[in-house]
């Protein structure tokens, strides 16, 4: 390889790294700056780790723990329900032939085209009458509509790859079909289940529109709504806001990096993360 293309390649990679990584770096840098620096003297480009103690004391003014608890409840509920229903759908779509299968597959795909905002108002009306409006469970029910099909696609793809003989052996042993799924198939596809779980979990973790619309009571707020409430509000120091945003982002970044390859595999059978 000649010199100039190699230099170009290095330059390109550097530019991409700056564009891709800078906002996250800047979150950390802002979190570790003082208000005076941010608004008057100018933000330092480095990470001032000596400001960590003052950041922690500022963070204690933000109800971050309560928000993250609410977020975790929504995310866990979304995961459990999506995976349970998604495993049933994925197994049926992979192993059975039945009337209506094509339509059901199409409808599952369709959910990924539907904008969240489009079912917002009818869900709002439904939740009023079901008493689910100001509740985290209402959020779970709304989120699962979008993450169940994704889980179903991933699980179907994984089961497709499991040889059928394994199931026949279990059937000879007189294991009922449901037992075959839970005791034979699901353990084999555990890595794909984990990927589906992470995707569903962070769909619930990141969700904003439903949470911002359905929750009135700010003690119920998940972190997405809580953090968004800082926009246009200047009472909370910006460093605390960025610190909270960073803590909120960290689990998502770590887990998405872990499962990135699985997501690529799942993408061919359906849309995964928007």
């Amino acid at each position, binding site marked *: 390889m000649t010199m100039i293309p190699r230099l170009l390649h290095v330059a390109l990679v550097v530019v991409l790294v700056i564009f891709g990584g800078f906002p996250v770096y800047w979150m950390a840098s802002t979190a570790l700056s003082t208000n005076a620096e941010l608004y008057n003297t100018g933000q330092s480009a480095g990470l001032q780790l000596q400001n960590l103690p003052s950041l922690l004391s500022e963070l204690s003014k933000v109800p971050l723990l309560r928000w993250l608890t609410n977020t975790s409840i929504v995310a866990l509920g979304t995961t459990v329900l999506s995976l349970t229903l998604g495993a049933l759908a994925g197994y049926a779509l992979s192993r059975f032939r039945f009337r209506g299968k094509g339509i059901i597959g199409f409808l599952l795909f369709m959910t990924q085209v539907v904008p969240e905002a*489009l079912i917002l108002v009818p869900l709002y009306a439904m939740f009023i009458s079901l008493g689910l409006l100001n509740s985290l469970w209402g959020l779970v029910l709304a989120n699962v509509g979008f993450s169940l099909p994704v889980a179903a696609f991933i699980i179907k793809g994984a089961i497709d790859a499991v040889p059928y003989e394994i199931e026949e052996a279990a059937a000879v042993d007189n294991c009922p079909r449901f037992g075959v799924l839970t005791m034979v198939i699901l353990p084999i596809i555990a890595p794909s289940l984990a990927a589906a779980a992470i995707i569903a979990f962070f769909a619930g973790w990141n969700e904003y*529109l439903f949470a911002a619309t359905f929750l009135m009571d700010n003690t119920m707020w998940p972190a997405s709504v809580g953090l968004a409430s800082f926009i246009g509000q200047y009472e909370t120091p910006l460093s605390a806001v960025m610190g909270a945003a960073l803590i909120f982002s960290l689990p998502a970044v770590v887990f998405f990096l872990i499962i990135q390859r699985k997501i690529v595999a799942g993408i061919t059978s359906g849309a995964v993360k928007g």
Partner: protein
Amino acid sequence: MTDISTGAARSLPQRARKSRFSAKAVLPYIFILPPVMYLAVFMFWPLARQIYLSFTKTRLINPSRSQFIGLDNYDRLLASPDFYSALHITVVYSVMAVVLGVALGTIAALALNRPFPGRTIVRAVLLFGWAVPNVAASLVWLWIFNERSGVLNRIVTGLGLDSVPWLTTTHMALPSVLLVTVWQVAPFVMLVMLAALQSVPEEVREAARIDNADKLNIFRAVTLPHVMPTLQLVSLLVAVWSIRRFDIIYLLTGGGPIGSTSTLIVKLRQTAFENHDLGLASAYGVIGLILALSVATIHALFNRHRAKRSMQ
């Protein structure tokens, strides 16, 4: 499948006919019914309600008192400049997101498709935009774009230029929102394209090299056709996501200034929850859905066309 039981049933014709309506035929539905029922209640019923609402006059204050008015909401939509503006912004935003996001993502994938020291770390950093939650991304970009103290304007004024109102003037707001969108979308494109590039069979490229084909020709004749289906799929996904996108746009600009970033979906929420006009809001949403569906349909037709061609 369950060979033993069907073998036994075959010898008893009467029981066989019965069993067609019992266990075996019912089994798939026992599995598929719970998820389907769930989606019917929490996805498709609300969707049908919303489409129905677009033919009614309904206020958010009292949604149970709604009145069927046929196509009046769509008449109002087609007569309102707001609608054409929202449609125009949605199309521009989505097309630009696809063009810029897919171009940058593909370039990044090509750059990462050859080994170099630190590639794993670079790859991880390039995925940040895709992994950071929307709300956190909006907060940091709002600060980066901050007119007085943001880092972008510090650079701009440092160069001796006037500071730029990134999100607060009509001609800059959409490009700024697009910049954040590309930051989020390009990593995903890169991830998928990288996988496609790595699945190009090395023997074919080797054969082309032996035939003395130059790099550009190998790319055009071998690599590009191989990754084309993936490129199309990923473009479809980015297009559909852009038509659907709400969080980032709403949190960065709220649809403003003066509606300059109000896509159909942002308009839908505003009309419903600020103007309390559920009928008109639903009409906005239905147009958005039709747009997303047509993109998906065009993609499906493309695929069928290609499948037919490869069979001949």
